[in-house]
């Protein structure tokens, strides 16, 4: 950690914080988030900053309240022993308080470590081994349990602060305290002076995964967080008083950046109750900007699609007509740099008679998701929703998180790729002509983009979008990829996967199948099996679907098919051969009505049964779950 400096009053530099007179600049990126919060609190104390649904009721907080809250949390934490330089881990979902804790911790000069809410105790121990935090803020009981189970492996862990204990009572020998307990402590409200940080000081550490699925810790400076946030805000074209929705696990990088972006743009951030209620809550919340994993976003969109298509004929007609019209309008404007007069008028009319009610219903006024890629959506769908005023920005797709940060559109590749300067990242060519990149702090783009194609930003010509394509792994080695034709690469993979699909789907047992990256370069085949066919091969033909898919015979059969397909792929590999490392199936059989499965067909992790690695199949011993069962059986 950086050496301790004396805290100074920030009253002096506050005016400098918001330079609203300069349009599009606002608060400079280097300012710590808590100062941004304070600035907002001073200027727009009255307006609502956060909304969250707790126990079925919507609570909302103004900027001023949040500021006060953060200060008191800092006091509370100080009482509990959080000093500058202390590391405090945070895990949880959908609760704005988690963010406030992060701010309070920064305000205390300590470092918040954002941990995935779905972390298990061993991973928890892993994070601990990296950071040795003494405090852990647990969003819900689940995370408390994780910490309690891992306590033996975390000797320095002093205190678990539980925000929501549900029905819990046990405090595990003083390890776990609730917020209320801490507030109870005398002088918890004593105001502690804030800690003034430099731009390059570490602002936040985020526990995430590299391309190999290994848990890694990403540390970002105030500057980089600020820049990324602003960048993100512009990407999602976020404005002041926009309404955002967040229900993602806090540790997800995009989530934290969304939060900081909202802070910088002073947009209103709402959290839905949980992922199950998300769709319903969204309809009520009517957000302007939604940030979601692609799978969820697609679910929303396609659901609207389906809805519209099943609603009355007239509406469908207006809908289609309006879309085509809007499309023509955009084409027109693309051609002449301005929308045609007639188009504008009609578009307005349509907006009144058709889209306005649509908004009221779905709550989409100008809903955008920065994390939804055109390529990922079914193209017609993407087009339709563009015309609905929902513009969708391209982005890389990570199988686990459904999207990563830092994908800024890069229209004009720069002529000379070598003299690239990244904020805090230095690039040099070594003798082997390979470019090495050194960074004094791991920048977001670099770590998040592990193993992926990322456009790097240069500051040539200020915020010019000039960029080069390079591949940077987390050791910081950069190799250039201008000579690779990305489309070509994409096509070959796709072709090979299509071949897999045709092979698998031709089998009697498999209705249809889709493929998604397993994050290790290979693919997971998600299978929609033909239940009757399964029954035919299963020993007990009476068994129900969820019993069927756990029977050794069935699994073995499916695994066999896939192994065949893998071999075939190796043999006739024109260019790239894709391998299926493991397969999964839907928790319930998909009927035809539930839509044909495209490669990206609406599919969520929780819909999938636990993965069965094909390798296991080869060794004959099947289905670990059964192996655990005691010998004695029930009639």
């Amino acid at each position, binding site marked *: 950690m950086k050496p301790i400096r004396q805290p100074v009053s920030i009253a002096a530099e506050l005016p400098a914080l918001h330079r609203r007179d300069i349009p599009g600049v606002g608060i400079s990126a280097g300012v710590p988030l808590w100062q941004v919060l304070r600035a907002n609190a001073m200027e727009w104390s009255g307006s609502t900053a956060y909304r969250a649904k707790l*126990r*079925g009721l919507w609570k909302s907080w103004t900027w001023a309240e949040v500021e006060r809250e953060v200060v008191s949390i800092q006091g509370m934490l100080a009482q509990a022993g959080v000093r500058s330089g202390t590391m405090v881990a945070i895990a949880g979902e959908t609760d704005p308080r988690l963010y406030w804790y992060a701010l309070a911790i920064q305000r205390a000069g300590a470092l918040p470590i954002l941990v995935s809410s779905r972390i298990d105790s061993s991973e928890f121990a892993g994070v601990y081994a990296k950071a040795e935090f003494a405090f852990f803020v647990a969003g819900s*009981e689940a995370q408390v*349990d994780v910490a309690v189970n891992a306590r033996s492996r975390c000797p320095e862990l002093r205190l678990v602060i539980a925000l929501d204990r*549900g*029905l*819990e*009572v*046990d405090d595990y020998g003083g390890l776990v305290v609730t917020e209320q307990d801490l507030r109870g402590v005398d002088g918890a409200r004593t105001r502690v002076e804030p800690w003034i940080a430099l731009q390059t000081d570490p602002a936040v550490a985020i526990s995430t995964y590299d391309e190999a699925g290994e848990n890694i810790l990403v540390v970002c400076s105030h500057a980089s967080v600020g820049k990324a946030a602003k960048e993100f805000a512009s990407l999602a074209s976020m404005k002041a008083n926009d309404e955002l929705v967040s229900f993602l696990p806090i540790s997800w990088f995009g989530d934290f950046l969304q939060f900081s972006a909202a802070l910088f743009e002073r947009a209103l951030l709402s959290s839905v*109750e*949980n992922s*199950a*209620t998300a769709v*319903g809550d969204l309809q009520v919340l009517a957000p302007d900007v939604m940030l979601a994993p692609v799978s969820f976003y697609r679910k929303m969109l396609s659901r609207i699609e389906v809805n519209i298509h099943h609603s009355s004929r007239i509406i469908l007609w207006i809908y289609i007509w309006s879309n085509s019209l809007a499309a023509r309008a955009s084409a027109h404007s693309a051609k002449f740099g301005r929308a045609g007069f007639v188009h504008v008028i009609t578009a307005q009319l349509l907006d009144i008679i058709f889209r306005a009610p649509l908004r009221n219903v779905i709550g989409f006024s100008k809903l955008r998701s920065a994390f939804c890629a055109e390529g990922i959506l079914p193209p017609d769908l993407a087009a339709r929703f563009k015309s609905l005023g929902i513009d969708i920005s391209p982005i890389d797709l990570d199988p686990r998180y459904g999207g990563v940060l830092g994908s800024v559109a890069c229209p004009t590749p720069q002529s000379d790729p070598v003299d690239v300067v990244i904020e805090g990242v230095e690039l040099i060519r070594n003798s082997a002509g390979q470019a090495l990149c050194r960074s004094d702090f791991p920048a977001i783009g670099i770590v998040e983009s592990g193993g992926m194609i990322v456009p790097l930003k240069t500051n040539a010509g200020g915020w010019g979008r000039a960029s080069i394509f390079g591949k940077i792994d987390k050791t910081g080695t950069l190799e250039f990829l201008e000579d690779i034709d990305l489309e070509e690469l994409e096509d070959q993979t796709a072709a090979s996967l299509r071949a897999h699909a045709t092979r698998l789907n031709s089998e009697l047992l498999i209705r249809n199948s889709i493929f998604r990256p397993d994050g290790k370069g290979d693919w997971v085949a998600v299978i929609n099996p033909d239940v009757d066919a399964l029954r035919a091969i299963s020993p007990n033909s009476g068994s129900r679907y*969820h019993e069927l898919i*756990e029977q050794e015979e069935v699994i073995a059969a499916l695994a066999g098919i896939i192994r065949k397909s893998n071999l075939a792929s190796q043999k006739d590999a024109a260019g790239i051969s894709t391998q299926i490392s493991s397969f999964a199936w839907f*928790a319930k059989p998909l009927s035809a009505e539930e839509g044909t499965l495209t490669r990206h067909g609406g599919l969520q992790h929780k819909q999938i*049964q636990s993965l069965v690695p094909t390798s296991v199949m080869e060794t004959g011993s099947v289905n670990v*779950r059964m192996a*655990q*069962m*005691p*010998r*004695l*059986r*029930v*009639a």
Partner: protein
Amino acid sequence: MRNISPTGADTIIVDDVSLRFGGVMALTGVSVKVREGEIFAIIGPNGAGKTSLLNCINGFYRPTSGSVALVGADKPSISVSSAARSGLARTFQNLALFRGLSTVENLLLGRNLKMKTNLLQVAMFVGAARREEIEHRAAVEEIVHFLQLQAVRDEPVGQLPYGIQKRIEFGRALASEPRVILLDEPMAGMNQHEKAEMSGFIRSVNDKMKVTFVLIEHDIGVVMGLSDRIAVLDHGEKIAEGTPSEVSANPSVISAYLGVEH
């Protein structure tokens, strides 16, 4: 599987209970002691009289001979509702939910015994009645939150998926803040994932709220993992009792099962 069986005092004492339907002996001389704060499982082949035993415990059936005592109850639970008053909750093999009512209403009915306002106050629906309603609603929301039922909060339970209904029924039992919960096949017809979830709920309620559980379950894997002690019934007689390991080692148990395996 956990073998730390709590050394709590006996809560439910089933003493030499026999139950006869006409000519059929459903139970013959069954004696069971359930300890405070343990998870006690009753297993056995179909028609072994498991459910009958449960029905005797919470007063649906009156034993032909023998006695059932709930320790600490103001009076011996002779009737279902008096059993409920003395802190006994129950779920059923084939759900007994109020199908026409929403999830929240079902849970609120779980707290019915705690609602004290009388007809007149209620008719006015101001002051006490209102406050009471709100307070219990809040309590119910805790359970909704705990069991992750937010998505179906206001749905009529009749149409909900089976797994969810099971969970709601469990929640309803929980809502009455009971000392003992009797679960009749809480995981019947669930897939592995749902089963894991359910046993998670049961375990944490048992750990954290110190509620005693008596449960019937067919999935031996689950039973072994979940319960502190197990009683095995066969043809209405108790053929074994003890920790999971003891029971699964017991030869008579195995024979009983193999005898009826198909």
